[in-house]
């Protein structure tokens, strides 16, 4: 227990001692120093550091040196917030808000120095929530809108940029295309010019060829015409005349020729006859020797043949011989083999024919001695051959043959002689006839000459030499006519408007000019020209096609250029700025969102703290009820019916149960007081001290008694030291009554401020409990 409060130079007091009992009352009006004493108690019990508010306030009011001291057995040390929150009950604090939040404010008053933790939590939750009416949520929504707008504008700019770049690329590509098309076209045009030049050349060449050909043709026509003119005499057909003369000549010739032929024939025959005669004579001479030999030999032969040598020859007939042999053999066989009677018969039968046969088989006759004959013939032959063998050999080897041979030779000679005589006659005949003919022939010759002359002069007239030339010429003329048809007259000549010569001259002039140009008549084919012309056409088509392409691209290019919004110019800058803005907006939004999450966390913490308060309220509810009952004069602690963490129901004065905020103000104030006591009850140890500073300020007078009784009960239950501060004398009397031995200090009494004679040493600190 604290027995003494000693002040030095402290506020109104200049050295004052105030003894304290279990219950002490400081009675005084305002300005009497109650507050000072209260502060002194605070300083002495808590000694708040100078850097904290409480300490600062004390020093502000009472200076640096706070000369306060407590005397007693052991002086507790109490934390400032505990002193103010638990140990000191101040009347002004009893009145709380009079609305639904009364219970929250009660809890705040009791456990968190007046801060309504629930309310703080709820505010934080609201901040964390998405209520669109809240300013920060409106700002968030606005920022998000701005972000969306910025994003959309940014993507617009991006796409503008893309468009411009793409257009630039297209323009570039088009320009490139146009340039390369231009190059292609130029190349093709060059090609075309080349081909055109070649084609022109070819055409000139062709023209030249044609002209030359035409010229040739015209000249040919000219020549033909001339030739035809020259052949005028052959126009008419004078063949009959020719034929006539020819026939005459032919006839004369024929006659002459015939006679000539006859004469020749006769001559020939005469020659032949003469020759034959000569030949015959020669032959006869030649053969004379042979003839003589032949005669001689023939004579010998004839003599021989008349006395042909003979000889006898014997020959056996083979058949008969054989048969005879056989019979003989048979006879032998019969003898040998057959029985004697038969055998002998047979044998005899056989032997006889056999012998006959054999005998008759022999023949002898007289034949020519062929050998002698052959010798003789050889002799003759040899003799002949010896003499005339080189001219004529004898082949024959029989007399007959020989005879024939010789007869032939003699016959030949006879005939030759006959022939000779004939031919001599013939010769003479022929000679005579020849002479006759010669005369005819002379006449025919003259006739021939005359006919020839006639023909010749006719031919000469026509300039011919031979008659068959006429036909040839006439044929030639006809051919010329035909040929002329192949070279027709040019129309202008036919129409009489120009002559061939003029035309040829024209051609010559043109050829001369072609010559000057160096055009030669090369072998050109129409095929080449055609091909070149075709190529030219194709090239032309390609060129036109490419030119059309180029024109269309040119048009596209103009369009594109028209659309082109120019360079990017300051778009990149705009994009960068917008992107920066976007980032800043995102940062701001993120910051706000982080705040919201943080608010949510803090809200959670405060909610837990609020629940803590609820729990603590529940903890003191017993005490609260008990003290409330005492205060309200109930026998049973029936003040509270229900303390949940949220609600507090109490039974009102009329005995009805009501929720706290519907209770009367007085009841509520009573609850607060009871609660303070219930809270203080939890204090242990040295700090069992309760300071009540005008605690009944808010209470009705009739409640005061009850409250005092409650406090008295509290003191008795918990052994607390009580210190009252009040200005109510009535209260002093009531305390004196209820609290026996209470120490009363009347601050209004004179001399109370300076109470002691002691000088004060600096307040010493007792160690805390």
């Amino acid at each position, binding site marked *: 227990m604290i027995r003494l409060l000693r002040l030095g130079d402290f506020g109104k007091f200049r050295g004052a001692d105030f003894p304290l009992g279990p219950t002490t009352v400081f009675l005084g009006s305002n300005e009497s120093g109650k507050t000072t004493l209260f502060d002194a108690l605070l300083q002495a019990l808590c000694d708040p550091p100078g850097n904290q*508010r409480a300490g600062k306030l004390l020093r502000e009011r009472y200076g640096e040196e706070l000369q306060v001291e407590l005397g007693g057995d052991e002086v507790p040390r109490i934390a400032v917030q505990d002193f103010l*929150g638990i140990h000191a009950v101040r009347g002004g604090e009893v009145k709380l808000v009079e609305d639904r939040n009364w219970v929250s404010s009660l809890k705040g008053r009791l456990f968190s120095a007046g801060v309504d933790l629930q309310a703080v939590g709820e505010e934080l939750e609201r*901040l964390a929530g998405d209520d669109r009416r809240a300013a920060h949520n409106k700002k968030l929504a606005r920022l998000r809108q701005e972000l969306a707008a910025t994003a959309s504008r940014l993507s617009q700019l991006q796409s503008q940029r893309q468009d411009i770049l793409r257009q630039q690329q297209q323009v570039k590509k088009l320009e490139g295309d146009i340039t390369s098309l231009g190059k292609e076209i130029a190349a093709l045009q060059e090609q075309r010019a080349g081909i055109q030049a070649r084609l022109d050349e070819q055409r000139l060449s062709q023209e030249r060829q044609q002209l030359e050909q035409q010229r040739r043709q015209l000249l040919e026509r000219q020549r033909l015409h001339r030739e035809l003119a020259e052949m005028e005499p052959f126009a008419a057909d004078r063949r009959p005349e020719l034929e006539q003369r020819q026939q005459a000549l032919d006839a004369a010739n024929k006659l002459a020729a015939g006679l000539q032929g006859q004469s020749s024939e006769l001559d020939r025959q005469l020659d032949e006859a003469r020759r034959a005669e000569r030949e015959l004579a020669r032959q006869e001479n030649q053969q004379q020797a042979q003839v003589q030999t032949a005669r001689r030999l023939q004579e010998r032969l004839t003599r021989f043949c008349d006395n042909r040598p003979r000889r006898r020859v014997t020959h056996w007939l083979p058949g008969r011989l054989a048969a005879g042999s056989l019979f003989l053999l048979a006879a032998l066989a019969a003898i040998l083999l057959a029985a004697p009677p038969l055998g002998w018969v047979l044998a005899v039968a056989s032997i006889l024919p056999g012998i006959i046969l054999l005998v008759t088989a022999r023949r002898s006759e007289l034949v020519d001695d062929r050998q002698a004959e052959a010798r003789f013939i050889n002799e003759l032959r040899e003799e002949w051959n010896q003499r005339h063998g080189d001219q004529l050999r004898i082949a024959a080897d029989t007399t007959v043959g020989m005879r024939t041979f010789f007869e032939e030779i003699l016959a030949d000679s006879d005939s030759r002689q006959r022939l000779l005589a004939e031919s001599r006659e013939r010769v003479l005949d022929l000679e005579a006839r020849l002479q006759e003919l010669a005369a005819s022939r002379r006449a025919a010759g003259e006739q021939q000459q005359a006919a020839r002359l006639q023909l010749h002069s006719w031919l000469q007239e026509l300039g011919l030499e031979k008659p068959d030339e006429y036909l040839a010429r006439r044929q030639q003329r006809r051919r010329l006519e035909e040929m002329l048809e192949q070279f027709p007259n040019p129309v202008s000549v036919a129409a009489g408007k120009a002559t061939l010569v003029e035309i040829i001259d024209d051609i010559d002039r043109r050829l001369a000019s072609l010559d000057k140009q160096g055009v030669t008549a090369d072998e050109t084919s129409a095929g080449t020209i055609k091909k070149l012309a075709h190529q030219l056409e194709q090239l032309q088509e390609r060129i036109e096609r490419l030119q059309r392409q180029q024109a269309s691209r040119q048009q596209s290019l103009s369009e594109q250029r028209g659309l082109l919004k120019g360079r*990017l110019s300051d778009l990149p800058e705009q994009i960068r700025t917008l992107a920066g803005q976007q980032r800043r907006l995102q*940062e701001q939004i993120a910051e706000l969102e982080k*705040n919201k999450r*943080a*608010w949510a966390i803090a809200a959670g*913490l405060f909610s837990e703290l609020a629940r803590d308060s609820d729990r603590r309220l529940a903890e003191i509810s017993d005490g609260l009820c008990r003290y409330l009952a005492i205060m309200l004069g109930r026998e049973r602690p029936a003040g509270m019916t229900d303390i949940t963490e949220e609600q507090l129901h109490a039974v009102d004065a009329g005995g009805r149960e009501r929720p706290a905020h519907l209770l009367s103000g007085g009841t509520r104030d009573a609850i607060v007081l009871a609660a303070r006591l219930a809270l203080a009850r939890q204090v242990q140890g040295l700090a069992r001290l309760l300071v009540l500073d005008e605690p009944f300020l808010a209470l009705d007078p009739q409640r005061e008694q009850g409250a005092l009784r409650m406090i008295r009960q509290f003191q008795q239950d918990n052994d607390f030291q009580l210190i009252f501060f009040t200005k109510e004398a009535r209260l002093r009397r009531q305390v004196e009554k209820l609290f026996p031995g209470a120490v009363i200090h009347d601050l209004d009494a004179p001399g109370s401020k300076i109470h002691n004679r002691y000088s004060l040493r600096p307040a010493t600190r007792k160690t805390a409990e």
Partner: protein
Amino acid sequence: MSVTILHVADLHLVREGPERDYGLAVLAEIVGLSNELPADYLLLCGDVFDSLADMEALRRPFREALEQVAAQVLFLPGNHEQLGAGRQQLSAFDFGKARLLAARPCELVTLGSGDEPVEFLAIPHQDDYSDYPDWPVPAKQARWRVALAHGVVAGMSYCGPADDEQGGSTLDSDLFSRYQVDYAALGHIHSRPPDFRDDGCLLAYSGSARVWRRGEFGPRGGRLVTLAEEISTRFVDFPSAGCFRSLALPLLPDGTLPGLELPGELHDNDYLEVHLQGLVEDENEVARLGERLQGELAGRVRRLEIDTSGITVLAGAASEPAVRQFLELWENNKPPRDHEDHQMWLRARLLGLEQLKRHLEKAR
């Protein structure tokens, strides 16, 4: 035969202050890496110097550093090289081995040994690129054409802080595809956006070579580009550039720190920004805490900044039971620091306290 390119930009060398040596150290690392790879070409795509005055003051160390480089070095001016230019012409200065490509509107050079030449189309930073279709760029002859440019390419997606895209002028990606560029080495954007393909052209930012401003999270470095059958590129990190790191520290109402948990990998090249947040009774306590932290941490990183913009003041906050209860409950329920929701819970703490503060203020 493939060609290796080290593509680097936005080094922002400054001539005075602690960042001077820091920048030059990164330059040395770049040189070392170029020789180590080895790279055939080193492309410096703009903002190598933070201003013309810085360039003037540092051109000697710059030349000396590049002496060591074996690759061919190309230097494209960015917007920062023109800051404070006035009458000065970049081309009047000697950059040693680095070949300055400052001709407007663009310049084409062909480099490389006989069998694998590479064309480089250099497009220095300029105000207006809108007449790019008329630029006199010859048709591509070599197998590859690489562009160097410095600016913002419209349409690429960026992921860094909004500041990244400030300044510089805007290019359109069509510029590169129109001129048959295979790879566009870009500078100006400090974060590391993903590379971007437009019609056969690969556009890529290397990211800043060092941490230049707050908010440049992640490793700093450049890009390694390989020209072969296909063109491939990947980021390479420069450890000497350190990283930008951000640390949020929630305070108790009395201005104390419940516990100081530093991020695991803190390097002495890092730029650390510490955010003190919370509802406090007395801001002076926060200032004192800040000083203490400065003392403890300043030595461990290259650059330390303490930010107290997340601090709100409410008298009596330390003794309010509601505050205490809320913070206790929060402390018991919060996920660990490496959890993905940790940042959200820090925010919930701030917002919860804010709401509570409103209540408390109303109550008073």
